């Protein structure tokens, strides 16, 4: 394992952007993680949100996709990125909970939809993705090379 990397485990509802080479890791169920990478500055960051849109009640935290995406892009720009150099990879949004409850509220799918919509609006290209399905995912993002390693999990995670 390359030792020059610092490590960051990304918890749900949080986001992380690093200027130094980091490996950012997370675990996804119906949550979505967006990895943004600046191909010129070779820096990147990731968010991890649980629900598509802020309901106006809770704290305006990156638990919600629309806030998490804005904040992640903002932070990239703050570190000197030009929005034209940013590209995105999106992961997660599985439907892990069997719709035994009757009302499948399709959180996973709605989470992905927000990602695609907002990235398109910001003209950030999605260069890779692995979304949907019924399994959780383990994501490892190298924020200097933009590489993402991805593995499906057999067991259920949140």
């Amino acid at each position, binding site marked *: 394992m390359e030792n020059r990397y610092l490590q960051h485990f990304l918890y749900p509802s949080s986001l992380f952007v690093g200027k130094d080479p980091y490996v950012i890791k997370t675990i996804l169920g119906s949550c979505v993680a967006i990895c943004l990478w600046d191909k010129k500055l070779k820096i990147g960051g990731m968010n991890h949100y649980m629900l598509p849109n*802020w309901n106006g*009640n*809770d704290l305006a935290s990156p638990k919600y996709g629309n806030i998490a995406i804005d904040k992640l892009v903002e932070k990239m720009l703050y570190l000197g990125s030009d929005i034209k150099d940013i590209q995105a990879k999106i992961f997660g949004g599985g439907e892990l909970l069997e719709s035994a409850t009757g009302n499948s509220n399709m959180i996973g799918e709605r989470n992905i939809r927000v990602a695609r919509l907002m990235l398109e609006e910001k003209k950030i290209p999605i260069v890779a993705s692995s979304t949907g399905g019924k399994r959780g995912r383990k994501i490892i993002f190298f924020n200097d090379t933009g590489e993402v*390693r991805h593995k499906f999990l057999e067991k259920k995670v949140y």
Partner: protein
Amino acid sequence: MSNLSDKQLLRELRLRLEERKKLDNEMKELSKDFQGVTKKLKESEALKSHFISNISNEIVNPFTSILGLSKAILSVEKNDWKKVVSMVALIHSEAFNLDFQLRNIFVAAKIEAGEIAPNITKVNIRSLVQTVVDSFNIISRKMGIDIKIEFNIEHGFGKNFYFKTDSEKLKLVLSNLLNNALKYSYKDSQVVLKMWVDEDVLHASVQDFGTGISEKNQKIIFERFKRLDSGINSINRGHGLGLSITKALLDVLGGDIDIKSQKGEGSIFSVQLPEARNIVEGFSGEGNDVFFDDDDEIF
């Protein structure tokens, strides 16, 4: 398509119509949601500007008192030293309040910036509870309110009980609940803090015998910047962030909070906090593990 019988054609049409209806309904739902959120946003914006004027009071007032009081102490005659004690007590309670408010605001800012992560250690729950309660001692004594601790956890080494969680976050959760309980209590009454464990879940409940919260208000008290203007002991103290922070912190720790209250009879806030697991499936807690397998896909 040209070979469809009339029956098939009809069925196909009906299917498509139904599909269309479904989409229409979804659209309606969405636009309703959208309108709701817009309204909320407007409200929230108004509350936010309110918040800023509130918060400057919250910070400026205690400072003014602290400055004034300390100046008064400086000019106290030596034989009047007894006066100093009461002034120092006042300074303490102002500073305590200031510290508490600022802590909340900084945590709220951290949560909104997405920079909050659980910091899990083995926490001595009994001593944590005692520390939190002790920190409110001076204030509760001043109000004549007795904070009663019912610690119903027996196991562990001796009298200590260790639980894997984030001690700072748990402290802030309990502090906020106690602060609220004191704020909405009548003078010379009681606040009861109960702690117990059920399987791997830590329970805490804070009960006051104060004003209580109407059913309608129970629904909105977790919203940010929302404050109920029925505090007894303090006129409009606070910033309306306490409970939304509490909820967000519990969210980070996988816990939950609920409330039982009746107008005029007081309130009980109950917190459930599951014990943190060291390891998230597939990763070690430390993060220094080997973290790829050969079957990783690369994107």
